[in-house]
C-alpha cells in the first residue's frame, strides 16, 4: 500500500520529517517497508525562463540562451542549448551545475551524468535546458521540455512537477483494512503523536431540483452479499482531465490518472477507503440498477477488455437488460465513462467480504476495490464517501448533483460493544496500566469507552468499536490495541521467573544427533535437499507417491518417496561443479501415500518417515605422499554402515545378501534391525546413473531412522575385564571360492568355545600358487581367558578343534602360517 506523505499531512498536523513519520507508523504496526523520495533526483533542477536566445557564433545548430532561474532577480545564466525548439520567453527545466542528469540521450544506455561548467565551441555554458527524456519523466528526446506559462521561475522542478513528495510503501496486515487509505494511516499517526485528526471538510454543493428517484431505481436481490447499496447521480458533466494536484497524488500512490470522474472515485477510495464506481447513465438500460447473482455460464467483458465466464455465486450489478459490473471487483466495458459521458451514476456499496473474495479468486481478478471489499470496509461510510465524490466531480467536471441519495440498507450494521477488564489487560500484558491510561489509548483511535462497573477488584469498560475496525471482535483484540498504543517497547522485558518441570516431556533425538556427529567426524558433508522432485523420477522409486496439486514447476511436483533421487541429484550437481570425490549424508523425510485406515500416521493416508541416506563416489582419498588413491567400492559403504551402527549402539543388525539385484541398485545388501527390514546398501545401477547423467559409480545406503530409534537408546552393559593375558592366533584356510566368509566366521565362533571373543579376517587371496576355484582366507583369533592364564596346549586344542570343524563343513584345508 502506497501512502503519500504530502497527502497524509492534509489530515494530521505533523511537522516533523517523513523519516520520523515512517518510524512512528512502523511502531504502530504499519510497517513502512520502503521510503521513496519521489523527486529527489530532481533537486538541482529549477524552473527557468529563456529571456534571450541567439544563434551560436560558431555553430549553426546551437543557441546561446540567457536563462533567468531566480524568482525576483534578473541575473541570468548563460546556457548553450542544442535543441531545435528553444525560443525566447519559454519556461523551461534547467539543470544547474552540479546536478546529476538522470538520463544522457547521447549515451546508448542513457547513463546519468553530472553537469559541469563547460565551453561549447568557445562559448561558456552554465547548466542545461533539459528534455523530458533527460529528466526521466517521459520519452520525448527530440526537443527541450517546455513548461506551462504559469510555472514560477526559481521553484524546484520537483515541486513544479508535483514530485516534492515522499511515498511510504506500507505492508498493511490483513487485519487492518481501515489502513488501506490515507485517513486510516493519518488516524494512527495522530493517535501516536497526540495530534488531531483533520477529517476532510464536507463541500456544500447545491443540489439540483430534480430528484434522483425520478431517474433511477435500485433494487438489491441479494442483501446477504450486498448489505448496503448507495448511489448518487450527477448530470451535465464535462469529462476532461482532473487538476494536476489530484493527478500528482494519484501518480504518487501508483494510480494512472484517467479523467476527472474516474480520478475522483480513485481519490476518494485512497482518501476514505470506500471503493466507488461511476457508470455512464446513458448506458444504463431502463433507468434501473439491479444487484443480483449471475446466471451460470453467463459471459461478461470487464473494463480491461477481458471476457469472463461467470458462475451463479457471483454478485453482479445489472441494469434492466444486462450486467454492467462484477460487484466490487470491476466494472464492465459496456457502461464505462467515456469522453461523451454527460450523466453519471456513482455507486458506493458495502459488499460481503467473503462474496467478493470468492468472486475475485474464481475470476483471477484482484483490483484495488476487491482487495478493500474482501478485507472489510466501513458499512457506515458509503454515503459520506459518495457525497464527497459527487461534490468533487461537480467541482472539477461541472454538472449538477441530483437531489437525494439512494441508500438501500435494510439491516443496519451497528457498532460492536466489547467489555474490557482492566485486570485482564494487565494480566495478559504483565503491565500495571490504570483506567485513565486505557481510556486515553482507546479513545485516540475512535473507540468510545464507558466505565461499566468498578470495584476494588476490577474495573470493566464497555467499548464501542467503530465499524471501520472489523478486526476488533473480542476483549483480546482491545488488549492488543492498548499494548500497541502504550508502545510495545514501553513494556518491561521480564524473564520467566522459574522453570516449571511439571508435565515436561523431553524428547531428544539421540540417534540422528549421534549419527550426525559420527559423519562429521568421519569426513562426510551433510546435505539438505528439496523434498519436492519431478513426477517421472519419483515414480521410479515408488508407485505410491504424494502429488502436489498446484506445483511451482514439473521439476517439483511430487514429494520424494526415497532419499536416493535427492542424493543422486547432489552427486550430479557436484560432478558438474568439479567435485567428483564425494562423501555425503542426509537425514530427511520421505513421503508416501498409504491406505487411509491402518497405521498411525497423523494425517491418515499420508506416511512420512525419517531416513538416513549415505552416498559415496569417486576416490576414497586423494593421492598423497603417504597414500595411493583408491576408488570406493561396495565394502566402503558396507564398512561405513557397520561402523556407524557400532557407534549408535546397535548390535542387533543383520545383513541380508540377496541373490538378485533391484533395478535401482546392484550388489545390494539388505539391512535388518532386530528382525525388521530397515534399509539397504548397494551400488547404484548404471541405468539410474545414466538417468541422472552421473559418470562415476555411486554407492549408497538408505536406512529408516525410526526403526533405529525404536531399538536405540539402550545402555551398553559392562563386562568384567580379564586379569589374564589374552592370546592371538592366526589361522588360514584354503576353501572353495564359493564359500562365504561370513559362514566360515560363524562356524569358527561355533566351534571355538566360550573363550574365543573375536575373529578378524585379515587376508583374502586368490590366484597365483593356488588352484583355480580355491581362495585363501586368513583369520586372527582372539582368545580371552576368564579364570587363569591359558597354556599353549589349551590354545592348540582349541584351534585344532576349529580347523577340524571348518575342514569338515567346507572342505577347507588348514594352511601353515
Amino acid at each position, binding site marked *: 500500500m502506497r501512502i503519500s506523505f504530502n497527502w497524509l499531512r492534509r489530515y494530521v498536523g505533523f511537522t516533523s520529517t517523513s523519516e520520523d513519520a515512517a518510524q512512528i507508523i512502523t511502531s504502530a504496526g504499519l510497517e513502512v517497508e520502503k521510503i521513496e523520495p519521489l523527486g529527489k533526483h530532481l533537486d538541482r533542477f529549477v524552473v527557468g525562463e529563456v529571456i534571450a536566445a541567439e544563434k551560436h557564433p560558431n555553430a549553426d545548430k546551437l543557441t546561446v540562451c540567457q536563462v533567468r532561474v531566480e524568482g525576483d532577480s534578473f541575473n541570468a545564466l548563460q546556457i548553450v542549448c542544442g535543441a531545435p525548439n528553444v525560443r525566447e520567453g519559454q519556461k523551461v527545466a534547467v539543470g544547474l551545475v552540479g546536478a546529476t542528469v538522470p538520463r544522457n540521450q547521447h549515451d546508448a544506455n542513457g547513463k546519468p551524468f553530472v553537469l559541469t561548467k563547460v565551453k561549447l565551441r568557445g562559448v561558456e555554458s552554465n547548466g542545461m535546458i533539459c528534455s523530458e527524456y533527460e529528466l526521466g519523466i517521459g520519452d520525448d528526446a527530440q526537443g527541450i521540455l517546455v513548461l506551462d506559462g504559469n510555472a514560477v521561475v526559481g521553484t524546484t522542478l520537483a515541486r513544479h512537477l508535483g514530485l516534492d513528495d515522499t511515498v511510504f510503501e506500507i505492508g498493511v496486515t490483513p487485519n487492518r483494512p481501515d489502513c488501506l487509505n490515507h485517513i486510516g494511516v493519518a488516524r494512527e499517526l495522530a493517535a501516536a503523536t497526540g495530534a488531531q485528526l483533520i477529517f476532510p471538510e464536507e463541500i456544500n454543493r447545491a443540489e439540483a431540483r430534480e430528484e434522483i428517484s425520478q431517474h433511477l431505481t435500485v433494487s438489491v436481490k441479494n442483501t446477504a452479499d450486498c448489505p448496503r447499496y448507495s448511489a448518487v447521480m450527477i448530470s451535465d458533466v464535462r469529462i476532461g482531465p482532473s487538476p494536476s494536484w489530484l493527478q500528482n497524488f494519484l501518480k504518487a500512490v501508483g494510480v494512472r490518472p484517467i479523467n476527472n470522474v474516474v480520478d475522483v472515485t480513485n481519490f476518494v477510495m485512497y482518501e476514505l477507503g470506500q471503493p466507488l464506481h461511476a457508470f455512464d447513465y446513458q448506458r444504463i438500460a431502463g433507468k434501473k440498477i439491479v444487484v443480483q447473482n449471475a446466471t451460470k455460464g453467463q459471459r461478461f467483458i470487464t473494463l480491461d477488455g477481458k471476457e469472463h465466464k461467470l458462475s451463479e455465486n457471483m454478485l453482479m450489478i445489472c441494469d434492466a437488460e444486462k450486467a454492467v459490473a462484477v460487484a466490487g471487483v470491476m466494472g464492465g466495458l459496456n457502461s464505462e465513462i467515456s469522453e461523451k459521458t454527460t450523466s453519471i451514476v456513482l455507486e458506493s456499496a458495502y459488499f460481503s467480504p467473503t462474496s467478493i473474495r470468492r468472486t475475485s479468486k474464481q475470476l483471477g481478478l484482484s483490483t484495488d476495490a476487491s482487495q478493500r471489499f474482501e478485507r472489510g470496509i466501513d458499512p457506515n461510510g458509503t454515503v459520506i464517501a459518495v457525497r464527497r465524490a459527487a461534490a468533487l466531480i461537480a467541482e472539477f467536471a461541472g454538472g449538477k448533483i441530483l437531489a437525494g441519495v439512494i441508500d438501500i440498507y435494510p439491516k443496519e450494521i451497528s457498532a460492536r460493544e466489547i467489555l474490557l477488564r482492566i485486570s485482564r489487560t494487565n494480566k495478559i500484558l504483565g503491565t500495571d496500566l490504570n483506567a485513565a491510561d486505557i481510556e486515553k489509548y482507546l479513545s485516540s483511535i475512535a473507540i468510545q469507552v464507558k466505565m461499566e462497573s468498578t470495584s476494588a477488584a476490577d474495573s470493566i469498560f464497555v467499548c464501542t468499536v467503530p465499524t471501520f475496525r472489523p478486526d476488533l471482535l473480542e476483549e483480546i483484540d482491545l488488549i492488543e490495541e492498548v499494548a500497541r498504543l502504550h508502545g510495545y517497547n514501553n513494556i518491561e*522485558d521480564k524473564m520467566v521467573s522459574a522453570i516449571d518441570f511439571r*508435565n515436561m516431556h523431553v524428547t531428544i533425538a539421540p540417534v540422528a544427533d549421534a549419527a*550426525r556427529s559420527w559423519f562429521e*567426524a568421519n569426513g562426510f558433508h551433510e546435505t539438505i535437499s528439496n523434498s519436492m522432485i519431478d513426477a517421472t523420477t519419483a515414480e521410479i522409486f515408488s508407485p505410491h507417491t504424494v502429488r502436489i496439486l498446484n506445483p511451482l514447476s514439473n521439476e517439483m511436483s511430487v514429494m520424494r518417496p526415497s532419499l536416493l533421487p535427492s542424493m543422486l541429484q547432489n552427486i550430479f550437481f557436484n560432478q558438474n561443479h568439479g567435485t567428483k570425490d564425494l562423501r555425503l549424508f542426509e537425514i530427511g523425510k520421505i513421503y508416501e501415500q498409504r491406505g487411509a485406515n491402518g497405521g498411525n500416521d497423523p494425517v491418515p493416508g499420508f506416511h512420512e518417515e525419517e531416513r538416513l541416506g549415505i552416498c559415496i563416489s569417486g576416490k576414497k582419498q586423494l593421492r598423497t605422499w603417504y597414500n595411493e588413491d583408491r576408488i570406493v567400492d561396495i565394502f566402503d559403504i558396507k564398512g561405513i554402515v557397520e561402523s556407524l551402527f557400532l557407534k549408535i549402539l546397535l548390535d542387533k543388525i543383520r545383513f541380508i545378501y540377496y541373490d538378485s539385484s533391484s533395478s535401482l541398485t546392484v550388489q545390494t545388501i539388505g539391512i535388518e534391525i532386530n528382525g525388521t527390514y530397515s534399509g539397504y546398501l548397494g551400488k547404484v545401477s548404471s541405468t539410474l546413473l545414466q538417468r541422472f547423467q552421473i559418470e562415476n559409480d555411486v554407492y549408497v545406503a538408505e536406512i529408516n531412522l525410526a526403526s533405529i530409534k525404536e531399538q536405540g537408546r539402550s545402555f551398553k552393559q559392562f563386562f568384567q575385564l580379564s586379569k589374564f593375558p589374552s592370546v592371538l592366533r592366526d589361522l588360514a584356510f584354503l576353501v572353495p571360492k564359493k564359500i562365504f566368509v561370513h559362514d566360515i566366521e560363524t562356524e569358527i565362533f561355533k566351534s571355538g568355545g566360550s573363550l574365543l571373543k573375536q575373529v578378524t579376517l585379515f587376508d583374502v587371496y586368490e590366484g597365483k600358487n593356488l588352484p583355480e576355484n580355491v581362495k585363501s582366507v586368513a583369520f586372527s583369533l582372539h582368545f580371552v581367558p576368564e579364570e587363569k592364564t591359558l597354556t599353549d596346549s589349551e590354545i592348540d586344542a582349541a584351534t585344532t578343534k576349529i580347523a577340524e570343524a571348518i575342514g569338515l563343513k567346507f572342505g577347507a584345508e588348514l594352511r601353515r602360517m
Partner: protein
Amino acid sequence: MTALKYPLASEIAALMKAAETRSAEVHSVDDLEKFRVEFLARKGGIAELFDKLKAVPNDQKPVLGKELNKLRSHVESLFEAMHHRLNSQSKKEEEIPDLTLPGRALPVGTLHPITQTLNDIAAIFTSMGFAVANGPEIEDDYHNFEALNFPPDHPARDMQDTFFISEKVLLRTHTSPVQIRVMEHQQPPIRVIMPGRVYRNEAISARSLSQFHQVEGLYVDRNVTFSELKGTLVAFAKEFYGSNIKYKFRPSFFPFTEPSLEMDITCFICSGKGCPMCKRTGWLEILGAGMVHPNVFRKVGYDSESVTGFAFGMGIERTTVLRHGIPDLRMLLENDVKFLEQF
C-alpha cells in the same frame, strides 16, 4: 689405619683409578659396553674384588666392604653419566625428516549450515527448559489453518501461499500446526520448541525459497504474560546474536496470536548504519511472536480464561544466511561441497 695395609685396599684404589681413566676413553655405545663388562659385569673387576673380600679377616671386613661399596656406586654413577651422554648424542645424530611435508590428514566433515543454526537455537531454548516436539509436513487444513484461527476464505490465508495435496490436505506452511498437535495431546504447562521443514508456493529466488525451515516455540501456563514473552525473546536474541545487540518490538499480525509482534535487532552486518542486507534501515527482522489467541485455546479445549501463553517462530534459512553472510538463499539447497565445506 691398619686396614689400608691390607693388599685389597690398594687393589680397590687401583681399580677406582683405572675406572676413571677408562671412562675418559668411552666415546661410543660399544666403548660403554666394554667398560661395563670390565668393571660392572657379573665377572667384572668389582665382582672380583667382592669375591676377594670373602677371604679377608673378619675384623677388616666392615671397613673394606664399605670401601668396595663406595667403589661400586662411583663406577655405577660414571656408567650412568656416560650412558646418558651417549644417548642424547645419538638422538642428536638421528636424521630429521622434511618437516614441511603435509601431515597425514584425518577427514574433515561438516554439518549443513541449516543444521548448525537449528542446533544452536535448540540449545538455547532447551537450556531454558523447552522440550522439542515434531509434527508432520503433510498436514490437514484444520491443523495448519483452521485451528490456528485462519477462518476459511479469509484474506489472512493469502499471507501464506499454499501447496495443496488435496482439498483438505496440504504441505504445512509453517511449524505452527505442531502447537495444535502438542496441545491436543497434553495439558498445560507446556514449554516446547518445534523445529521443522515448511513449504510456501512462492517463486524461488535469491531471497525466497519454496521450502525452508522454521523453529516454533510455545509456552502455556497460568499467568504467562506479554512482558515475559518479550523477556524470553530478549534473552534468546542476546545469547544467539550477542549480548550487546540493540533490539525493538513492533506490533504485527498473525491470526493465532494476539497481541502479535515482530522483533528487530540492529543489523550486525553494518552495525545499524544501513546496508543492502537490512534494506538500508539498520534493522533486521529476526522473529515473529505473540500471545496465543483465545480462539486457539478454545479449539484445543483449554479454558482461555485460566491459561495464557505465548508462541514465537523464526525462519532458519534467513538466520543462517545472515549469520554467515551468504548472498543467495538458493545456495543452501544446492549442496555444492565447495559451499558446504566452508562451514
